[in-house]
C-alpha cells in the first residue's frame, strides 16, 4: 500500500433483529432449514391490497440498539418506500426509513488505551429484509431465477457509520464491536454465516493532507470478518495504485471475489439514486416518548465496555481476563454465577483464571459454547474453592475438571475417588521424602556439594510418587529439612 494516500472508510451494517415474527406481518422468522416459501403470506409476498402492521418488539429492539450506540431517538419517525425492480423484492419497493430514521447521531468506542477511537454513527433505521434468489441455467442455456420469500419481511436494522475509519483492521474491529453490542442486548444473533449480520463498505482514498473526499467505491456483501479485512485492504491498495499511476477512481459498486482475492466491478445500478422514496401511506408515523425512551434504557443490559470496567474495579480481575470474560454476555454471566457460588472468601482473580484458562482450553478444543458445558458455575465454584483452600493443587484440579467436564459429577467426589485430594500432611509426606532421598544418592550428594537446583528434581520425584497430589510447598520444606540434616541415615558407604 502506498503511504502517501489515506484511506477513508464508512460502513453500512445490516442486522436482522431477533423477533419471533416478521416486521410487518406475523409470519414466523424461524425459516432456517425450512422448505422455500413456507413462511410467507400475502403481506410479505407483496400481494396488492394488504395492510402491513409494525412489529412492536422490533421497535423495542431497534430503540435498544439506538440507545446502546449512544444515539438520539427520534420522537417521531416514519417509514418510506424505496423503489427498485428486482425479484427478491416482491412489492417492487422495500419499506425502509429515509429522512426520519428512528435513531441518529451516535457513536461506538473501539480500541483500548491510547489507540481508543470513537466512531460516529450517522443513523440507525428499520427496514425489511428481502427474499432470496437462486440463479439457474436451463438445458437450453436460458438463465432464470428461483424466488424464495421466506426471508422477505424479516426485520432488519441498517447501521450507518461516519466515514471516520482509516484502516481495514479498524473496520473489522468496528464491526466486531457492533456485533458484540447487538448480541449483548439481545437485538440480533449477529451470526454472519447465517446472514443475520451483513456488511457493505464505502472505501475511498485521498492524498495525505487532502481535505476533500475521493470518489467512493461501495463493496457489497462482506459477510465475514476475514472478508471485511481482505476486501478493504485490497481496495485501498487498488485505489492508491490507480491514483499513483495517474489514473482516477470511478464511483461504482464492486463485489469481493474471495477465491481470487480481488474486488470486481459489478454491473452498476443505472439509477441507483432513483429510488423514488416517498412516505409509506399504509404505516402511520411511529412516536417514541421520553418516558418510553427512559423505560427502554432501564431495561438495557449492561454493555460490554461498562461490564469490563466493572470486572476490573469490583473484582480485581486483570485487564486481559476482563476482556476475555466480557467478550460474550454468556461468558460474563457464567463468571458472575461462579462468583456468586464462591462467595467472598475466594479471590475472583483465581476464579477468572480457571474460567479463561482451564475451562476455555477444554471448550475451545471441542468448539463448545459455555452455555452447553456440564461444568456448571456451581461445580466450577466448588473446584476453585478446593484449590483455594489447598484441598487439591492446581495440577490435580485440572485433572478433576477434565473428568467432570467429560462426565459431570461432583469435583469433590471425583477428587476423593481418584485419590487426588492434596496431601499436605507432613506425617504422610515425610516417609515419601525419605524414600526419594534414599533412592537418589547422587542427587543428594550434588545438592550437598552446592548444586541447589537439584531440589527441583527431587521435588519432581516426590510429586511422581504421590501422583501429583502432594502440596509442593510442604514437600519443599520437608526436602530442605531432611537435606540439611547430617547424612546419618541410609547405608554407610564402604
Amino acid at each position: 500500500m502506498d503511504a502517501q494516500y489515506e484511506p477513508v472508510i464508512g460502513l453500512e451494517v445490516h442486522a436482522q433483529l431477533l423477533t419471533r415474527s416478521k416486521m410487518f406481518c406475523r409470519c414466523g422468522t424461524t425459516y432456517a432449514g425450512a422448505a422455500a416459501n413456507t413462511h410467507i403470506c400475502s403481506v410479505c409476498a407483496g400481494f396488492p391490497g394488504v395492510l402491513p402492521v409494525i412489529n412492536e418488539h422490533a421497535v423495542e429492539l431497534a430503540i435498544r440498539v439506538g440507545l446502546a450506540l449512544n444515539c438520539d431517538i427520534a420522537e417521531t419517525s416514519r417509514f418510506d418506500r424505496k423503489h427498485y425492480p428486482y425479484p427478491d423484492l416482491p412489492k417492487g419497493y422495500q419499506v425502509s426509513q429515509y429522512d426520519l430514521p428512528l435513531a441518529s447521531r451516535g457513536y461506538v468506542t473501539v480500541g483500548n488505551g491510547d489507540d481508543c477511537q470513537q466512531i460516529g454513527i450517522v443513523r440507525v433505521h428499520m427496514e425489511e429484509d428481502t427474499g432470496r434468489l437462486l440463479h439457474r441455467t436451463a438445458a437450453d442455456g436460458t438463465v432464470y431465477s428461483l424466488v424464495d420469500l421466506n426471508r422477505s419481511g424479516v426485520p432488519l436494522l441498517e447501521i450507518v457509520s461516519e466515514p471516520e475509519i482509516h484502516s481495514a483492521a479498524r473496520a473489522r474491529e468496528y464491526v466486531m464491536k457492533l456485533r458484540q453490542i447487538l448480541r449483548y442486548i439481545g437485538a440480533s444473533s449477529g451470526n454472519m454465516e447465517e446472514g443475520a449480520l451483513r456488511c457493505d463498505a464505502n472505501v475511498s482514498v485521498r492524498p495525505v493532507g487532502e481535505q476533500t473526499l475521493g470518489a467512493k467505491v461501495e463493496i457489497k456483501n462482506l459477510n465475514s470478518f476475514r472478508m471485511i479485512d481482505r476486501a478493504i485492504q485490497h481496495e485501498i491498495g487498488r485505489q492508491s495504485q490507480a491514483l499513483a499511476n495517474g489514473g482516477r477512481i470511478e464511483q461504482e459498486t464492486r463485489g469481493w471475489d474471495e477465491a481470487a482475492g480481488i474486488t470486481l466491478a459489478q454491473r452498476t445500478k443505472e439509477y441507483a439514486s432513483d429510488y423514488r422514496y416517498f412516505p409509506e401511506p399504509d404505516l402511520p408515523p411511529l412516536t417514541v416518548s421520553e418516558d418510553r425512551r427512559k423505560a427502554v434504557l432501564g431495561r438495557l443490559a449492561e454493555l460490554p465496555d461498562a461490564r469490563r470496567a466493572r470486572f476490573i474495579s469490583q473484582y480485581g480481575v486483570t485487564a486481559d481476563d476482563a476482556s476475555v470474560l466480557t467478550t460474550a454476555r454468556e461468558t460474563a454471566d457464567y463468571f458472575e454465577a461462579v462468583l456468586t457460588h464462591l462467595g467472598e472468601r475466594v479471590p475472583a482473580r483465581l476464579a477468572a483464571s480457571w474460567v479463561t484458562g482451564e475451562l476455555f482450553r477444554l471448550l475451545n478444543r471441542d468448539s463448545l459454547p459455555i452455555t452447553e458445558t456440564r461444568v456448571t458455575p456451581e461445580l466450577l465454584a466448588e473446584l476453585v474453592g478446593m484449590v483455594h483452600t489447598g484441598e487439591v493443587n492446581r495440577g490435580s484440579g485440572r485433572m478433576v475438571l477434565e473428568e467432570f467436564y467429560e462426565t459431570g459429577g461432583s469435583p469433590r467426589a471425583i477428587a476423593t475417588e481418584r485419590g487426588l485430594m492434596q496431601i499436605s500432611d507432613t506425617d504422610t509426606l515425610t516417609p515419601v521424602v525419605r524414600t526419594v532421598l534414599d533412592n537418589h544418592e547422587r542427587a543428594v550428594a550434588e545438592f550437598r556439594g552446592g548444586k541447589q537446583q537439584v531440589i527441583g528434581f527431587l521435588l519432581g520425584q516426590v510429586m511422581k510418587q504421590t501422583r501429583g497430589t502432594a502440596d509442593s510447598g510442604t514437600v519443599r520444606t520437608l526436602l530442605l529439612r531432611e537435606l540439611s540434616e547430617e547424612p546419618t541415615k541410609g547405608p554407610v558407604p564402604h
Partner: protein
Amino acid sequence: MELTLEDVRHIATLARIGLTTQEMETMRGQLGDILAHVSQLNELDTEAIPPTAQVLALQDVLAADEPRPSYSVDAMLANAPEREGNYFRTKAVLGYET
C-alpha cells in the same frame, strides 16, 4: 405540464416497461395531463396546514410479536406465472444484486 420524451423514457426504464415511439408519445400526453390535474393543488393556500404524509389521524399502530401460521405454499404460488417446486420462477434480472 409538459414532459419531454426523455422523461418518459427514463420513467419507463425505471418501471422496466418497453414502449414503442408511438406509445411514448401517447404516454407523454397522458402523464402530462395527470400532472397538470394534480398540480391544481398548487393553487390552494396551504400556509396554515402542516405537511403530512397521512390523511388519517393515526400513529403507533403496532402488533404484538406473536407468530401466526403462514399460508400454504400452494395457495401462495397459485397465481405464480411460473413455478418450479416450491419456488416462484422468474426471468433472470441482472445488475440489481443487493
